[in-house]
């Protein structure tokens, strides 16, 4: 940034600088905060933690910036916030931009300058149009020029630099006609001011053009910046750290630093960061890789793939590969290849611009040649060509799309859906077929036992702990946190289960007709590791079907388990036992039939399908590879946000189309007027302001 920019750097107060220099600055992400009480709660919690000198919440970005005493780190702050009931994640400092948003500030400064100049010049134009005398008019033109030219030189820089870049690259973009119009308007108006040749000056038109287009550009920038910072936050949800065991000491290291042969401690619920082998027996949740919902028991020395979760007890992993070579990364690399195709999708704005730029240039050139040939007056012809360029300039076009996307993505973010890609909103609106992964998306990742009362849970826990059978170990793992109940005469009958006596009555945990059964003196409880539906899953399916979408369920799980769940939810299309490549193939098949597929999935086995689909969403609990492969993330744990966002996307696309139609309508009226040489700066000012205000008003109305 140059010194000419008035607002490049937000100047922190001297006090802030002194305080920050002495301490350490940490950024935390707070996805759950939403109101004034949350701000007060978080700041009060943090400032009462010893070692934390200052905390400032940014509600818009759902973050808090903390200054701590040196070498304290984020741990005490995270602990205090979790204890106070706020979800908090540490942000990677390389991702969190402490200086804030320079581009946005510069754009705002340019808008302020253009707005100031526009208002003053317009006030002067009012005097000219209401009939000022010759001398007064000349003086007003000079004053207008003195305000407008420096203001344009500063405010219109983004258009000039983008236009020059495009021309250098041999392309024509939307900014070329804009820059040309501003430049031509300035030159002809200056010529008029100097020689008083009797033509109009266009200073106010050039300024209002710049002002409205900058406003559109700022909205666009804000939407993109929010998406970018949110995407960065998602990678920070899983800070790539692991606990390394060296002899008797443990320390936290960056996952990238793990070497084959290192020993890594995995706590219950932890994901393996790299491929390796276990040093003890363990129960694993492999659903992220295979989609299989049942936990898998493995013996000591068996391999674990990166991304698998330990369910029962802490184990030690001996790394056999570096993070970069692990299964997870290799699959993620495959996804990148599949993804490139989708980046070629061009949004409705691009298509409009591609149509628009040659049309405007052609019209302006035609106007110039026609009038020059007809009247032989080059000065008049240039004036009319300028009028055509200014009138057709895409104020409304430049605002039509960003105003809608900014307003809708903001609303979606508040509803818990985060769109990472700029065109995702439009692609969401085109969807007609929805594929949903079962394990981890419709259901919660880890299978859970049915609800048990404290006594039953205690008995089951004691019985399960006494056995080393995989099912017993899985049940014991699921019941951690309950207090074991003391039992007598515990016996294990191989293949049948455990029996014992409790207060003189027999109790048992064993094989029943449909899986594991807990037998108590007064009743029998089936202890199947049932999958629990995510909150809102049933409602989501119902509203998707009533909205007319074709809903399919995909799973790597057994047909029986899949059918059971599908029947509960009312899904008619079930695809069970699918390998990752089968899912991608199904997406490709549907796409070939002309369907626009929305894929919702969370696991590694879904990533190829996520990347291949027309548009894709992943829940926030998904593996980072799946989140990277998808266009958006459902931050809310409630799935009802999905049909809401689809509805919002369809409404947004309708609004965008309306806005483009309004802009085209204004142009259809204004262009003939300009071509006929009847356009005055007054018409231009009215047409431009009116169309811009209508378009923005249409975008923000609910």
């Amino acid at each position, binding site marked *: 940034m140059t010194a000419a920019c*008035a*607002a490049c*750097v*937000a*100047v*922190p107060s001297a006090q802030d600088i002194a*305080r920050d220099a002495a301490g350490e600055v940490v950024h935390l992400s707070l996805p759950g905060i939403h*109101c*004034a009480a949350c*701000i*007060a709660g978080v*700041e*009060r919690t943090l*400032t009462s933690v010893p070692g934390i*000198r*200052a*905390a*400032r*919440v*940014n*509600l*818009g*970005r759902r973050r808090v910036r903390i200054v701590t005493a040196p070498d304290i780190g984020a741990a005490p702050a995270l602990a205090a916030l979790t204890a106070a009931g706020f979800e908090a994640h540490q942000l990677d400092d390389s991702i969190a931009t402490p200086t*804030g*948003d320079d581009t*946005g*500030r510069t754009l*705002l*400064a340019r808008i*302020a*300058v253009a707005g*100031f100049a526009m*208002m*003053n010049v317009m*006030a*002067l134009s009012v005097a000219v149009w209401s009939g000022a*005398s010759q001398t*007064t008019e000349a*003086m007003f033109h000079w*004053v207008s020029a003195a*305000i407008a030219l420096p203001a344009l030189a500063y405010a219109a820089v983004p258009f000039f630099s983008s236009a020059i870049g495009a021309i250098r690259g041999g392309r024509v973009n939307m900014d070329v006609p804009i820059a040309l119009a501003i430049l031509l308007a300035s030159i002809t108006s200056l010529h008029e001011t100097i020689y008083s040749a009797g033509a109009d000056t266009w200073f106010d038109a050039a300024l209002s053009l710049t002002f409205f287009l900058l406003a559109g550009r700022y909205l666009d920038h804000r939407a993109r910046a929010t998406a970018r910072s949110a995407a960065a936050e998602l990678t920070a949800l899983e800070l790539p750290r692991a606990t390394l065991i060296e002899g008797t000491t443990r320390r936290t290291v960056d996952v990238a630093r793990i070497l084959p042969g290192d020993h890594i401690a995995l706590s219950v619920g932890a994901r393996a960061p790299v491929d390796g082998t276990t040093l003890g027996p363990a129960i694993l949740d492999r659903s992220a890789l295979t989609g299989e919902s049942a936990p898998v028991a493995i013996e000591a020395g068996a391999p674990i793939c990166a991304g698998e979760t330990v369910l029962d007890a802490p184990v030690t992993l001996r790394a056999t590969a570096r993070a970069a070579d692990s299964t997870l990364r290799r699959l993620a690399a495959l996804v990148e290849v599949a993804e490139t195709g989708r980046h070629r999708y061009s949004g409705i704005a691009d298509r409009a611009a591609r149509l628009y730029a040659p049309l405007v240039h052609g019209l302006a050139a035609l106007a110039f040649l026609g009038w020059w040939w007809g009247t032989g007056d080059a000065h008049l012809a240039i004036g009319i060509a300028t009028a055509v360029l200014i009138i057709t300039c895409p104020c409304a076009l430049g605002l039509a799309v960003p105003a809608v996307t900014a307003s809708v993505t903001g609303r979606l973010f508040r509803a818990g859906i985060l769109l990472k890609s700029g065109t995702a909103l439009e692609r969401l609106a085109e969807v007609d077929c929805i594929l949903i992964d079962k394990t981890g998306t419709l259901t919660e990742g880890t299978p859970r036992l049915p609800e048990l009362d404290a006594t039953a849970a205690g008995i089951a826990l004691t019985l399960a702990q006494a056995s080393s059978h995989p099912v017993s170990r899985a049940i014991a793992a699921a019941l951690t946190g309950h207090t074991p109940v003391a039992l007598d005469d515990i016996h294990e009958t191989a293949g049948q289960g455990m029996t014992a006596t409790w207060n003189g009555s027999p109790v048992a945990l064993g094989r029943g007709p449909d899986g594991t059964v807990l037998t108590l003196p007064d009743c029998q409880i089936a202890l199947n590791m049932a999958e629990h539906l995510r909150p809102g899953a049933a409602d989501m399916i119902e509203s998707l079907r009533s909205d007319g979408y074709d809903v399919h369920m995909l799973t790597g799980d057994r047909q029986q388990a899949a059918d059971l769940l599908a029947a509960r939810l009312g899904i008619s299309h079930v695809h069970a036992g699918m390998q990752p490549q089968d899912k991608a193939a199904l997406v490709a098949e549907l796409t070939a039939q002309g369907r626009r597929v929305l894929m919702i999935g969370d696991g590694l086995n879904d990533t190829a399908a996520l990347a291949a689909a027309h548009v894709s969403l992943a829940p926030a609990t998904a593996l980072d590879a799946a989140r990277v492969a998808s266009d958006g993330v459902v931050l809310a744990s409630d799935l009802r946000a999905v049909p809401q966002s689809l509805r919002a996307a369809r409404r947004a696309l309708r609004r965008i189309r309306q806005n483009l139609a309004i802009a085209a309508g204004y142009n259809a009226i204004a262009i003939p007027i300009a071509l006929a040489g009847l356009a005055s700066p007054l018409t231009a000012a009215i047409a431009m302001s009116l169309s811009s205000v209508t378009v923005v008003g249409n975008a923000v109305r609910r």
Partner: protein
Amino acid sequence: MNILIVLIPVSITLGAAGLAACIWTLRHGQYEDLEGDAARILLDDREPDEPQ
């Protein structure tokens, strides 16, 4: 019309003062968290990030 000699500079100066104020707010980061600042009006007067 001589009054214009005075009035035009006055009006432009007033406009420029507004512009200067706007740029001052920009440089002090008042647009960093619009949503948060709107909510903060409901909080106590004491600056929450003041060392206590």
